[in-house]
């Protein structure tokens, strides 16, 4: 159907009260858009203002590189020591573990659902994976703490530690003793939590790959594996990176499940089996009983988390841009 030529009334042109629909909608949309920015701006502004005395007291750089965190209990003054490095390290390590475990799995799941699964299984499978996103994180935490980690993960971790700890260099990351809550435990459960996000988006992106190209590749005699690797994954690369970014965002900010599984020791270590601590987890853990000065320091961790999320995202975009140029594809 063709649209009505300009200057002539059509069935689509509103009359009477309908005239107000356009401006009303426009202003509603503008309000919504602006309010998102306003909320974000307010949040950054007020948290930074709250955290500023801590940065001044501890030193802005020192806050990020010092690994000594000793809460003070003053109501009016600063008496503690606030270095958040242990938490920053834990956050990054756990998020990295989660992405490394979740990304290949999510890609495999989405390829299976879109390309390989029998037609009548596709719907139920996709729903099941997305259902994982509906489970509250505290349930993941409890399940991980009381069931998954002691029953499944602990034997695996002990095996890994026994096998890899003696290896030079690599052994540092697998050195014992194996605690039942550690970076790897938190990262593994986190991987399950971000799996549905990455899968859902990758699946959509993979479904968008032009069927002509896929069929052309098959026509040239490519196998399933070659089609997936050379056509589908290459075409959907930018979208998959976007999906990974969303997953990473969730992994960096995830609080309760990580708090329950990471160990909560306010320290850091190179071993994957070290019971460490993470930024959001530490805020949630200690906020309740914190004295006013420590509350400000916890808000400063929140500001730090925001800064780190921005840095990680910018780095990821740069990486995609670079890979995109090398691959000759205008990714993102």
């Amino acid at each position: 159907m063709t649209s009505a030529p300009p200057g002539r009334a059509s069935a689509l042109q509103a009359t009477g009260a309908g005239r107000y629909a356009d401006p009303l909608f426009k202003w509603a949309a503008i309000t919504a858009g602006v309010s998102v920015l306003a909320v974000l701006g307010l949040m950054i502004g007020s948290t930074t203002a709250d955290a500023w005395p801590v940065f001044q007291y501890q030193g802005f750089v020192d806050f990020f590189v010092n690994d000594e965190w000793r809460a003070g209990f003053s109501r009016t003054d600063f008496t503690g020591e606030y270095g958040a490095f242990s938490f920053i390290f834990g956050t990054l390590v756990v998020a990295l573990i989660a992405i490394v475990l979740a990304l290949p799995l999510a890609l495999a799941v989405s390829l299976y659902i879109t390309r390989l699964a029998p037609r009548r299984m596709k719907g139920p499978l996709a729903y099941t994976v997305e259902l994982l996103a509906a489970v509250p994180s505290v349930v993941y935490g409890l399940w991980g703490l009381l069931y998954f980690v002691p029953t499944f993960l602990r034997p695996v971790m002990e095996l890994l530690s026994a096998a890899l700890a003696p290896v030079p260099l690599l052994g540092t990351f697998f050195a014992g003793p194996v605690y039942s809550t550690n970076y790897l435990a938190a990262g593994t459960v986190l991987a399950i939590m971000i799996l549905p996000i990455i899968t859902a988006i990758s699946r959509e992106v993979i479904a968008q790959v032009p069927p002509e190209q896929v069929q052309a590749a098959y026509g040239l005699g490519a196998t399933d594996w070659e089609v997936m690797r050379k056509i589908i994954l290459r075409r959907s690369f930018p979208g998959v990176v976007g999906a990974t970014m969303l997953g990473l965002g969730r992994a960096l900010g995830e609080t309760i499940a990580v708090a329950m599984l990471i160990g909560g020791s306010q320290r850091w270590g190179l071993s994957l089996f070290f019971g460490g601590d993470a930024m959001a987890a530490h805020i949630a853990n200690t906020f309740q009983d914190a004295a006013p000065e420590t509350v400000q320091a916890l808000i400063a961790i929140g500001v730090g988390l925001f800064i780190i999320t921005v840095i990680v995202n910018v780095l990821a975009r740069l990486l995609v841009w670079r890979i995109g140029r090398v691959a000759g594809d205008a990714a993102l």
Partner: protein
Amino acid sequence: MTAPIRAMLSMLVLALIATACAANGDAGDPTAAQEDDQQPAAAETDVDDDADRAPAAAASLDGAGATFPTPLFQDWIFEYEAEVNPEASINYQSIGSGGGIEQFLSQTVDFGSSERYLDDETLTEAQAARGCSAIQFPVVFGAVTIAFHDQEFDDLILDAETIAAIFQREITTFDDPAIAALNPDRDLPDADIIPVHRSDGSGTTSVFTVYLDHTADNWELGEGTEVQWPSGTLGGQGNEGVTAQIQQNPGGLGYVNQAYALENQLPTARVVNDDGNAIKAELENTTEAAEEAEIPGSFQFDILDIGGEGFPIAGTNWIFAWECGYDDDTAALLRDFWSWAVSEEGDSLALDLGYAPLGSALKDDVLAAVERINIQQ
């Protein structure tokens, strides 16, 4: 096409307006709604001003503070509202000891609760804030026990110095000479100790570290609701988190509330007290400890230097209230509820849940303090 869009649009606008209005209503003083509730109630009832001990007919109390006594407070409130005063409505929010003090000082609640007493500086601040003195009194005690992963360590004897060394990672195996010296009759294994502490800020940690800071000469981590634990220790979130860590890590050793250890039947240590007796944390030993402690009239005390049959690591829960500024019904309900809570009825509920009630000598002093609520009208 236009009709559905218009309908959707008007619904959207309506919804936006509705939320905006609702938000406006809520955004004001959060206590406004509660005051609205209280005012008519106060108007309807005519309780004599001097009827101090008579239960308030219909009033509501808001309290906030420590998490440690929450199960007990909930039981007390439930029982009190069901059996003693059906007209009363008491609401306790377990927001933590720090929050309890903050909320009390900013006067957003009728009573506060904490595992730390208010020191003189805070009391002065309180006086300035409300124009009359704050009252504080203890209502219940709880011991902090050392629990183990392995059943074989049940009744293992430890003293303050050994516990301090374990949590500072100076003693890392069970067959350490220091532990062996305290337990000459035991055959101790060469097993690693994994110390488990609270990862959240907690009154339990405060009780534990105040004890170590006071008693053990080798303790270097200070005291407070959170301290900087050394590498090689594990943190658990809440008593249940610590319990899970102890149960899952072979060699696990951690400190938990007595109530929790009893409930989960964890093997626990005997701790050497000031008289050199190795005491198991039983409820009577905790009350005994409270009676052993020197308690000043100001109720600013920590339970330390416990001898006799008293278990040495014990904490107290304080309630904070004011000498002025309540309306008559609220004040009457406050007095009635707290004097009921420390009565024999309240005591038996406390014992059921693994808390140690006040000793009889202390009880009279506490009741006298309760009577001072709203004394200045």
